[in-house]
């Protein structure tokens, strides 16, 4: 990406952000062996955001040249002034912060062609159809996206980042004896990196396909969950969505301003003492996070946001404006999806920290409940009432895994549910393939250990 922004740095006044960004997206999808999706999309352009008298003005355009940069800067100023002209400039200026500087070491050298994704998906599909002909159907998806951006601000921030991520996902369908179709899907591979770095060899994933086939065969025989509040073990693959939906959204500072129950609970116990939850900026427990943010899209140096520490609600996720309003330190949670999007308060890598228990002991401790292992979509609320879909799970009877269950949904009020957490496993699983939706989509990481708690489970 050619640098045209440096020349503008001395000219930026007040609080101004100038960002050039390119989003690339490759998708291949095979449904029952048919290539129904085969696309390459590129969206790029330049945007400016200006803070003036308490209001933001934003403008963007696709062309990346000096004329368009001048144009979006002028339009952003004009838009902010529209609001000050109608409402008066009565709010304080945004604090000037130490400028963030960052330049990624990731290069585009390892990017691949569309053919690589197609061939990879075909080989996965061929393996499934040859080995498991009795499946009702299968879907194989390979995908790779990358966000490249360059940001300069009036505070002196100077940031270049390139964040690729890639995945191979499959869905298997099987018919039950009564003619219904049950499905299961899962990531065979998914992580930060270009496709060739994350999905190196289809053969390495065959073992995961075999394991998923075993699950769908058990699900074929699955029973409906018994609706009601039950003891459950959420596998570590579900801890991330619990952290994200149940707590994360409720503690985004813009939602706290909107009335979330987290507001009046700051400093109070909201969870069992064994629960600590952090929105990590870039590094967790000594390892890189799936979505490493070093400087956010307002130019703020990103730092970890400790949300719950030993059961006590300690803080929120902030952009500059909300941090100033609450009198808190900014955390660097302002993130924008496309060049044409303004930064919003978004999560980065939200995780419950592991405990000391063994998963086997946790399962053995449940007399009558469920062990839930695969999840789907989720949703949050101001009240901290959350839900997420469960696509695979099992009964636990007298400490032993029993029959599989069919698709269901679990829900609860997070600040109640977290008080019922009695065990956390000593493992840590990160999920990073999905997108979070909140006016704009954004890639997020989420993680945690297996969790023993009580939740409301849907069923019959």
């Amino acid at each position: 990406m050619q640098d045209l922004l440096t020349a503008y740095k001395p000219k930026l006044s007040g609080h101004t952000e100038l960002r050039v960004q390119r989003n690339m997206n490759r998708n291949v999808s095979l449904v029952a062996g048919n290539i129904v999706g085969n696309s390459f999309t590129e969206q790029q352009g330049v945007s400016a955001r200006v803070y003036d008298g308490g209001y933001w003005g934003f403008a963007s355009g696709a062309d990346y040249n000096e004329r368009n940069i001048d144009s979006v800067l002028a339009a952003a100023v004009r838009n902010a002034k529209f609001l000050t002209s109608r409402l008066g400039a009565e709010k304080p200026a945004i604090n000037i912060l130490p400028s963030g500087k960052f330049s990624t070491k990731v290069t585009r050298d390892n990017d691949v062609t569309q053919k690589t994704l197609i061939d990879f998906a075909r080989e996965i599909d061929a393996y499934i159809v040859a080995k498991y002909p009795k499946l009702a159907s299968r879907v194989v998806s390979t995908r790779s996206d990358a966000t490249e951006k360059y940001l300069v601000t009036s505070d002196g921030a100077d940031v270049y980042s390139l964040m690729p991520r890639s995945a191979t996902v499959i869905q298997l369908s099987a018919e039950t004896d009564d003619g219904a179709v049950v499905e299961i899907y899962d990531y065979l591979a998914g992580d930060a990196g270009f496709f060739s770095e994350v999905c190196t060899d289809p053969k390495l994933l065959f073992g995961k396909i075999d394991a998923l086939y075993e699950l769908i065969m058990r699900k074929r025989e699955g029973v409906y969950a018994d609706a009601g509040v039950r003891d459950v073990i959420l596998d570590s693959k579900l801890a991330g969505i619990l952290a994200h939906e149940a707590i994360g959204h409720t503690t985004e500072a813009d939602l706290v301003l909107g009335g979330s129950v987290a507001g009046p609970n700051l400093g109070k116990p909201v969870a069992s003492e064994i629960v600590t939850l952090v929105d990590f900026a870039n590094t967790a427990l000594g390892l890189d996070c799936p979505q490493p943010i070093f400087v956010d899209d307002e130019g703020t140096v990103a730092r970890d946001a400790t949300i719950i520490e030993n059961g006590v609600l300690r803080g929120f996720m902030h952009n500059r404006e909300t941090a100033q309003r609450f009198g808190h330190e900014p955390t660097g949670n302002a993130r924008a999806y496309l060049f044409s999007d303004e930064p919003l308060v978004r999560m980065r890598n939200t995780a419950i920290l592991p405990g000391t228990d063994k998963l086997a002991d946790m399962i053995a401790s449940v007399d009558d409940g469920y062990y839930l292992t695969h999840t789907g979509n989720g949703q949050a609320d101001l009240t901290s009432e959350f839900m997420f879909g469960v696509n695979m799970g099992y009964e636990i009877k007298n400490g032993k895994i029993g029959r599989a269950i069919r698709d269901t949904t679990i829900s609860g009020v997070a600040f109640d549910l977290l008080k019922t957490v009695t065990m956390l496993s000593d493992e840590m699983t990160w999920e990073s393939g999905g997108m979070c939706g909140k006016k704009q989509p954004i890639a997020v990481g989420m993680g945690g250990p297996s969790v023993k708690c009580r939740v409301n489970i849907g069923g019959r």
Partner: protein
Amino acid sequence: MDDTIKKELYDIADYALAALTKAGASGAEVNISKSQRDEVNVDAGEFSLVRTTLGSSLNIRAIVGGKRGTAATNRHDRESIDAAVAAAIAGAESSEPDDAEIIADGVGEHTFTIGAAAGSLDKMFDRKQEFLAQVKAELPEIDVMQFVTQFNSGNQLYANTNGSRLTCASGRYSTSITFSAREGDNVTSMNGSGYSSHEFDTPILDHDFVRRALGEMKAQLHTVPVDGKFVGTLVAAPDCLSDFLNSMVGSIEDSSLISGTSPWKDKLGQTVADSRLNIELDPFYPRITAGSPYDGNGNLCERSEIIKDGVLVNFALSQYGSRKTGLPMLRAENGFIVGAGDTALDDIIAGIDDGLLINRFSGGSPAQNGDFSGVAKNSFLVKNGKITDAVSETMISGNLFEMLNNIVAISSDVQCDGGSVVPYAAFRGVTISGK
């Protein structure tokens, strides 16, 4: 459409189609647009941001040796077009031949104009300020959260190598409001409402469904849990009914029918629902403001029934899905209309002894066989013919396809938000469970 813009779009199409043909495509199509979005934002009850985005797009689909490749870019300069052409050709060459991949027959030249040519930032600001003042005065318990209003204008061209040239100039306002109610530290679940329209002259709170959604929030400050579980009647409000029926439509789209996993794959022409259920897409219906006159493959759209008097009369297949399965194509992409019933909502409620009025469903995606479960949000118990307490921590579960045969009544009241026209509907036999 302005002649200068039209010429610009035609020139891009001619250049791209010629380049694709020269590169070996036996057929190709392009969707090209230039657009502008003006947006006024309120966050946490206060004006926060004005945003202007100038957009452009070029989407290419090329067939090379019976193989399909697609590519998209948001730039219209020759270098970007050349790169997108090369990406589409490379994608096709890497793919597999598929007889279902075709470029639609040429339909000649058609021009459409929908809505207003230009929006007004002042009008958006004034209406929003008026709304905030009205809510503060009339519904003081309401917290307006994210409240976004846009005017989206665009000029689009579809062109293909079979001679189709379809242009559409459109402009519409859209507004979405997220809100909750608060009393001290007590806060309700958040809820949302919104609509799209060609004009923005009507006060936002004058839209009945917006006022109703806001007006119901105060009662949600005090909720009761459902004790245990029971099987009762579920009254699905329009937004919730849309979610359920869109899931149903999803099960008769390309993916489910190509994979053969749709539970209705063999049901065309058969009764699948209560005879009072009618579902169609009609992008030209007068109260639909966001209808598409042609689809992404250059097929002219028309009013299209999916369920008529409970009979499945069409699937929701695209051009590709139709050719792949040998089943008919749905000749519309949007304008979702559910036929109104003949019973007033109040009369439906009056006939229910034990049930739940659900305004918003927050649940996992229904399973392929129609099983669903999720949380009933912003919802109320119905007891002995009356709406009573708001509920908390309440889940519902059932089977979508069974529900469509268990309809108690469909309301004569409909909600029209510019994108859809949907009534209330009551279903018997849904499991409602609490803590």
